[in-house]
């Protein structure tokens, strides 16, 4: 499968990344390489092989419903670019 710069532009928009024309060009080439690498998997003959839901053959890994301590608020907010001691501050959300 081959990627076009339109594909890359769309993915960039979905990830809220702004790419310059130069970046778009180099990114398209790089992503094409990654996708091409993964494409090699298509060469494997999978006739008669059951699809798997997960790479690990494990099921039902659970924990009991008991509350454990959360992070202190100061620590939770510590990495935020902007906060007001109580909450994360982000540019006003439009619409809703």
């Amino acid at each position, binding site marked *: 499968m081959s990627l076009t710069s339109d594909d890359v532009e*769309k993915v960039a*928009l*979905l*990830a*809220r990344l702004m790419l310059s024309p130069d970046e778009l060009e180099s990114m398209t080439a790089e992503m094409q390489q990654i996708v091409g690498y993964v494409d090699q998997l298509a060469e494997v003959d999978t006739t008669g092989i059951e699809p798997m*839901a*997960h*790479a*690990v053959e*494990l*099921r*039902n*890994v*659970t*924990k*009991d*419903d*008991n*509350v*454990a301590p*959360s*992070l202190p*608020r100061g620590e*939770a*907010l510590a990495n935020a670019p*902007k906060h*007001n001691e*109580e*909450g*994360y*501050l*982000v*540019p*006003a*959300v*439009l*619409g*809703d």
Partner: protein
Amino acid sequence: MSKYTTIIGLEVHVQLATKSKLFCRCSTQFGAEPNTQTCPVCIGMPGSLPVMNEEALNLALQTAVALNCTIPPLTKWDRKQYYYPDLPKGYQISQYDMPMSEHGHLEISDSKDRFETKQIRILRAHLEEDAGKSVHDEVAGRADSVIDLNRTGTPLLEIVSEPDMRSALEARAYLDELKLLLTYIGVSDCNMQEGSLRVDANVNLHIDKGGEKIATPIVEIKNMNSFRAVERAIEYEAGRQYKVWQETGAKLGDSPKQTRGWDDAAGVTRGQRSKEESSDYRYFPDPDLVPVSFSDEQVDAAKASLGELPSTIRESLQSDHGLSAYDAEVLVNQGRTLIDYYQSAVKVAGDAKGVCNWVTQDVLRVLKESDAGIETFSITAASLGDFVAKQKSGELPTARGRDVFDAMLEKGLSAADAMHSLGIEEVDDSELESLCQSLLEANPRIVDDVKGGKQQAVGALIGQAKKQNPNADPSKVRQICLDLIAKM
């Protein structure tokens, strides 16, 4: 004949009543200080790993079997990617192509017969994690938004119906029945104010135009904060779509699905900013979580744990207790604790209809006036049952029932003590007969009137009898007087 048929499907998100979140052990308690219930897992720190909450799986399974869903042998988790400030990981863990349940149904009916009893099919019910909340600044859009991530990762069950409802009334009945069922089995408190139950409605019209059936484009309505709002929004939207169709002739498939928000104050739906570019969710299996398989034993255990469901209780109240459909509906819709109260009282009273009358009329009236629940009601189920039994046996004259009930209610007395405090005792027949005899002797004109064919004249004697002995049973007094006059 209406100009069109309204086609409605509902998506309901219910918060499951777990103590901790779906994939981490942060508390789900509502109303905590912002951002005090988060951890590296639920705020998406690199290197953290989610672990499923066993209880959330159990509650989801109970709900699914209560909705008559099929439980596939294997279910898995997928990442739904979208970019929004209240979604710290940049994706929501949800279920895409292998939901934990599908193909169920819920029966709705109307005790006032405004629509026929019907089954609403459930397409699927799947688990997912909730997002956080944006606190919008009052200064319209100028300042930053504040994000609170306490709710992030709370377990939700999304219950998706087929488009089987045909009116706002049917949609309302579906929501009422669903909420009743969920609260009966105790999987969610369904508190809409706290966001434990949220509803989106998909609405379009089928228009018959000279034999040709035309479907209008489907609109998803959001932001409805009460069941009443859902009803109003659907009614408004149906009318709006018909008008738009008359003006533009736009049909299903002409444009992508539109999302509109309900403005409750204005009573209208409004188009929301198109998020067309973000509607590509690029689902893929979440590698951090292993699949879940429910065994047949687990499914059977979930079914067995449900207890009696509202629809079953409604039926048995009619078939075994001889109640009307309306009375059964009133009792069941009050919730499980009231049904437990009613059933315990009936066991003592041995008179289902009698208990039903007192519960639906007096008990519910008192609860409504005091804005209280049956849990704190001062007359216990056993006391009420005993009270009804005493009326049935004649020990307590029906005419004094209300006085005794009030005394029991106000002073917390048993039926026997309340009767004692009011001086109520059964009047034996010979005592009643001599009372009537003396009244007839004192009122020769009434005797003449009755003999002359005016039977209703005897009513004046009943009042006098009650004055002399408040325990005298009016209907007995009437019969005895008439019998005595006949012999005169």
